[in-house]
């Protein structure tokens, strides 16, 4: 390692943070990474995408979250693991950099963009770290193969599994930060748990990080918080409606482009997305401000579908929804698609099944190799036990996936009986909509 790796700032820098109070930076490398253009870009990407249309406080960015994850990992490696012989102290800077940069490749409204344009933010994280970027230049100064090590930790292909576990496991710094941060900014009363307690009982052991059994109740609380946040915030049906519309806008714009449609305002920033040749430079030039700017411009497009969808998104005229059971109702969906066509509502854009699903906690089952690494408790005698074997609360929800399917549609269009009155009534009847 070069001296740069060990270089400290003359004076510690602190970021004021609503979740951790202060985020402490003493390493020159970390300070330099925060100052790169690729990291600063995260200020312009919201942590929760379109959730701000449901919870108006959810305007926080991936920049805030990335600093939060860094701070949690810093406390683990500098305080909790400092005196532990099972921990390789030479991994400290690697952990801090990987924590700080773990979400670097996220684009604007990642979920929808990835789906429509077949992108993967994890690949872009790798490209930013390993490519010709300011981040890469900082990391290379540590040592030539340091960018690759950071990329490997984030991709979970690094040899030291303890390092990976801190950033990515069923109880990791990423989740501990986003649960608390998202709860704070959405204003919900879920998502709170005793992180101080969890940090104090983390122990490095062999190729994993385990929890002292005395911290089991704090972990139970964390798992329940996570469960509630998923269903109360992340899978909120109104947020899903805005995601559905956002996704359809992108689909429509891509479709129009492939048909040679002439946009009144040239979508220069989207060109390579439409053709599937996205360079890193193009990707980094897109952020949520740019995307919403286009949506605003497209409110005046001549294509009625693009215009309408953008107007819905910008003015928050979202789709309504009904519960949907795909196993019993897939034939009904075919029928609805036909009726939507008759009513001159393109079902590809105006009739959408959306599914959400979460598995609060899972563990290996005997005999079948699973991919989820369980949370292990370190018992007083030194024995290791899987969490759900000790905790009745966790056992009750282990491996139990909850799934929710909804069918989204534009109720306002169906209630407009100036055209296709009978067909629209049939649709409303099938959807079970009686309220006008």
């Amino acid at each position, binding site marked *: 390692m070069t001296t740069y790796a060990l270089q400290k700032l003359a004076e510690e820098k602190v970021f004021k943070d609503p979740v951790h109070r202060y985020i402490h930076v003493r390493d020159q490398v970390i300070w330099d990474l925060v100052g790169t253009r690729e990291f600063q870009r995260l200020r312009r990407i919201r942590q929760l995408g379109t959730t701000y249309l449901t919870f108006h406080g959810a305007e926080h960015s991936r920049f805030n979250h990335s600093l939060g994850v860094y701070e949690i990992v810093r406390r683990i490696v500098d305080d909790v693991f400092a005196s532990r012989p099972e921990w390789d102290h030479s991994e400290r800077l690697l952990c801090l950099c990987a924590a700080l940069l773990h979400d670097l490749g996220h684009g604007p409204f990642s979920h929808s963009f990835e789906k429509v344009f*077949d992108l993967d933010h994890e690949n872009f994280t790798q490209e930013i770290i390993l490519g010709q970027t300011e981040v890469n230049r900082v990391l290379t100064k540590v040592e030539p193969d340091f960018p690759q090590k950071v990329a490997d930790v984030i991709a*979970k*292909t690094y040899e030291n599994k303890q390092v990976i576990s801190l950033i990515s496991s069923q109880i990791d710094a990423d989740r501990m930060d986003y649960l608390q941060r998202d709860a704070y900014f959405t204003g919900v009363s879920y998502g709170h748990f005793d992180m101080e307690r969890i940090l104090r009982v983390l122990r490095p052991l062999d190729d994993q990080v385990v929890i002292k059994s005395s911290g089991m109740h704090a972990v139970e609380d964390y798992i329940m918080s996570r469960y509630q946040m998923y269903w109360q915030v992340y899978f909120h049906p109104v947020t899903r409606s805005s995601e559905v519309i956002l996704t359809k806008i992108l689909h429509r714009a891509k479709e129009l482009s492939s048909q040679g449609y002439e946009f009144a305002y040239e979508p220069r920033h989207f060109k390579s997305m439409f053709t599937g040749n996205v360079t890193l430079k193009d990707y980094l030039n897109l952020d949520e401000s740019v995307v919403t700017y286009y949506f605003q411009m497209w409110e005046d497009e001549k294509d009625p579908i693009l215009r309408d969808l953008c107007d819905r998104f910008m003015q928050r005229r979202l789709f309504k929804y009904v519960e949907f059971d*795909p196993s019993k109702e897939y034939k009904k969906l075919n029928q609805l698609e036909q009726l939507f066509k008759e009513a001159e509502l393109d079902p590809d854009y105006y009739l959408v099944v959306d599914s959400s699903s979460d*598995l609060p906690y899972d563990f290996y089952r005997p*005999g*079948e190799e699973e*991919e989820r690494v369980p949370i292990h408790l370190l018992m007083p005698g030194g024995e290791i036990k899987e969490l759900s074997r000790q905790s009745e609360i966790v056992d009750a929800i282990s491996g139990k996936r909850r*799934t929710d399917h909804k069918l989204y549609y534009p109720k306002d269009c169906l209630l407009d009986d100036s055209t296709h009155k009978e067909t629209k009534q049939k649709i409303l009847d099938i959807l079970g909509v009686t309220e006008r």
Partner: protein
Amino acid sequence: MKDHARLMQAFSAVDEIVGRKKLQKIIFIAKKHNYAFHEKYQFHFFGPYSEELTLRVEELCNMGFLKEFNEKKSGYYQYRYEITDEGRDFLASQTEAPSAELEPFLTDLNQQSSRFLELVSTILYFDTLEEAECIEKVKKVKEKQNYTEEEFQEALSYIAHLKDFS
């Protein structure tokens, strides 16, 4: 439901798949060869793994289109998947047909062991690296599996053989 339908077409092509790990690797390898599967993969402890695939398969089971059997085999349990009659009805209602090459491709993969497919899929996961570098990487991340040089050679030959399908 289109992604669900594509998975059902995969199950239909091979009649049954034994083992969750095997299923994961088969779909990953097929995706790598440009068959229309959209499940997102990440690297996990047993190689490329897709949480989305796990979820969709669970959903297909919950919908009654797939039946999951948990069977004891030589001292350990494994999962086996079969299409139900409801699943066949669902497939019949789909308008999008799979490509003609999908069935022989998946059948060939399904005849391999899950350990071997784990190696093949991990090599493919790192296929942007030079061959020697890729093998070194796989050896590092799969240290516990103790793959032999013969197995590596066999996997590389098999990857070459898979190109014959396209």
